């Protein structure tokens, strides 16, 4: 029978062997990803050499030899040979970076301690705190009362901010906008720009697709004019030329001019982003909405826009991030946003040293990065959440 020809039959399953040392763990990962071919190996070695060349001095500058704030730390430490980043300088100018020229509270400025340092600028800090309290639940998916929350944030909160910062009522000292500055102004311009430009951009995008010739023409004209002009020109016109055309003695607030300029400018960009989303929708969606008997606004708000906007979340957030960074351009019209506050402090001779300016710029970069990076993370989360899947 066939049996006797079989020399060997395995009776039991061979136990699993560990993978060869060369294809698992760090070594395996490195072989697969870093040294898989000659060109890859060269790239890896070059990259490592670059990191070895750049990282130690960078580390030494930012951490190792840096001058940290503390008891008895003076500008002399920052001027010393071999000193790294002068963080003590950032610490001493921190209130200016955040609040600009905003006046200190007369009582709390004389007090000591952490609470006093918060209360010295309690009006601005209250604006920050309330804003965070309203914004976090608004952006947190799954929390209830979104409509109420949105009304509070978009309608009540701006009024609160206005009265809190400008004052002049309820016994608050009046603070002209020229005294606002630093991160406060950067956030105000960024937030107002974002909140105004999105709805305005949607309206403009719809207007551009409209069948009504006047609406369509106006929308196209608005978008093309604002998109064709550099933001710096818009701000410069608003700040230098506009006053010359105004009646004598009548001036429009500088910050307001910048706010309007930035908002309209980014609305034009937003309109084109949204239009991209509208055009990505198949014609069948419009027809389906129409066949259900929905009128224009209903079909737009229930069928078209939710899909269109979802498609262009990356584009929208891209515009938001660009807008947030563009806020630093208001510096050229004499508004002290965060970057300008850092720049002007870099001139301060009380902390004058070789690394003063570069430390200031590193600080500004980190702050901008933190805000832009969180916006980007949030948008990725929203994309995943809203991904109801047409992509199989």
């Amino acid at each position: 029978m066939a049996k006797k020809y079989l020399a060997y039959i395995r009776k039991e399953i061979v136990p699993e062997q560990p993978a060869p040392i060369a294809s698992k763990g760090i070594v395996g990962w490195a072989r697969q990803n870093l040294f898989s071919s000659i060109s890859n190996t060269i790239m890896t070695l070059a990259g490592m050499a670059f990191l070895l060349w750049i990282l130690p001095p960078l580390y030494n500058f930012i951490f190792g030899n840096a001058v940290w704030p503390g008891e008895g730390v003076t500008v002399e430490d920052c001027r010393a040979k071999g000193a790294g980043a002068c963080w003590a300088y950032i610490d001493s100018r921190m209130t200016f970076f955040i609040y600009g020229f905003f006046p200190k509270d007369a009582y709390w400025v004389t007090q000591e301690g952490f609470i006093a340092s918060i209360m010295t600028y309690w009006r601005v800090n209250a604006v920050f705190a309330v804003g965070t309290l309203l914004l976090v639940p608004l952006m947190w998916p799954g929390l209830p009362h979104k409509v109420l929350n949105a009304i509070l944030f978009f309608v009540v909160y701006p009024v609160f901010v206005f009265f809190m910062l400008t004052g002049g009522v309820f016994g608050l000292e009046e603070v002209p906008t020229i005294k606002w500055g630093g991160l406060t102004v950067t956030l105000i311009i960024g937030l107002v720009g974002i909140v105004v430009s999105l709805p305005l951009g949607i309206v403009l995008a719809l207007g551009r697709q409209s069948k009504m010739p006047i609406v369509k023409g106006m929308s196209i004209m608005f978008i093309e004019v604002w998109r064709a002009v550099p933001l710096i020109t818009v701000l410069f016109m608003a700040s230098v030329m506009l006053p010359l055309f105004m009646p004598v003695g009548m001036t429009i607030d500088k910050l307001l001019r910048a706010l309007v300029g930035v908002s309209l400018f980014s609305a034009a960009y937003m309109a084109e982003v949204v239009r991209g989303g509208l055009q990505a929708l198949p014609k069948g969606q419009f027809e389906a909405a129409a066949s259900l008997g929905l009128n224009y606004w209903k079909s737009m708000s229930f069928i078209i826009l939710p899909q269109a906007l979802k498609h262009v979340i990356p584009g929208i957030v891209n515009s938001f991030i660009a807008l947030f960074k563009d806020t630093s351009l208001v510096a050229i019209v004499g508004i002290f946003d965060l970057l300008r506050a850092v720049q002007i402090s870099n001139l301060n001779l009380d902390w004058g040293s070789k690394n003063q300016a570069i430390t200031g710029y590193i600080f500004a970069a980190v702050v901008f990065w933190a805000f832009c990076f969180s916006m980007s993370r949030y948008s990725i989360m929203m994309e995943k959440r809203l991904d109801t899947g047409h992509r199989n």
Partner: protein
Amino acid sequence: MKNKIVTIALSAAMGLMASTAMAGTLEDVVAKGYIQCGVTTGIPGFALPDADNNWAGLDVDYCKALASAIFNDPDAVRYTPLNSAERFAAMSSGEVDLLSRVTTWTMSRDTQLGMNFTGTMFYDGQGFMVRKSSGITSPKELSGAAVCIQTGTTTELNAADYFSANNLEYNPIVFVDRDEVVKAYEDGRCDVYTTDVSGLAANRSKFADSSEHIILNEVISKEPLAPVVRQGDDTWFNIARWTYFALVNAEELGITSANVDEMLGSDNPSVKRLLGVEGDFGAPMGLTKDWAYQIVKHVGNYGEIFERHVGVNTPLALERGVNALWTNGGLQYAPPIR
């Protein structure tokens, strides 16, 4: 509708003519309760936020002096930071009541822009910085020296003119960026660094061994920095100009913010007239008779302002030099009050 258009056109036209047609700045200022003062967007010693986040500097103190004269309150000022491009437009449009922002007094600005300069708050000019160890005391000794200069500036042209006019050999080492110039000088690549004196002083203060460097007294260009008011409002011009004169006169008469109250009892008729003890020199300008007393009381005299912001005990560490009183061989001179 037609009326509306006419109104708009008229007001637009008036806006354009603001530089010539505006009058009564003092009335406007008194009505709103503060002076809108145009300052720089940041120059050490002249206008910069201090440690308490308030504007401070020589230019800022002039605004405070003016506010003291009008309101008896040095803080009745709001500051508008303006860059070089905006400054004259901001004046023409009435956005600011005066400019106190290191503006060089030149003929074309004085005669063509509808502006008036009130008086030189600071005589700046191109100077030279050398190492103390070099033993150089005058630019005339700079023959054969390596000179660090920023290229493409009037500084470069002024230096070339000066050295050729004095038949001196020199070896220019030029850079595009100011920071590079400073670094080259600090690293010892050149013997001399030249730019405006106030700029030299600001850069010197950042050196680790700042006391090892001196700025030569002699300057080779004229940069008189003066506050500016709109042409066509003589009352306001007078107030602005005599505020500066009061500062200088007070220093000449030895009146300081510390002793001004004592000085009220002085027998010197010049002091009496300045402080308003005798005669009333404020009323013709629309001010109170103790206008100058208020200035000195709140802000001090010219010398005090100078020492506070740019003098030898500040990071800028500038000597009085040409900014000394005429009695000490400088150029600061004020007509008498009588």
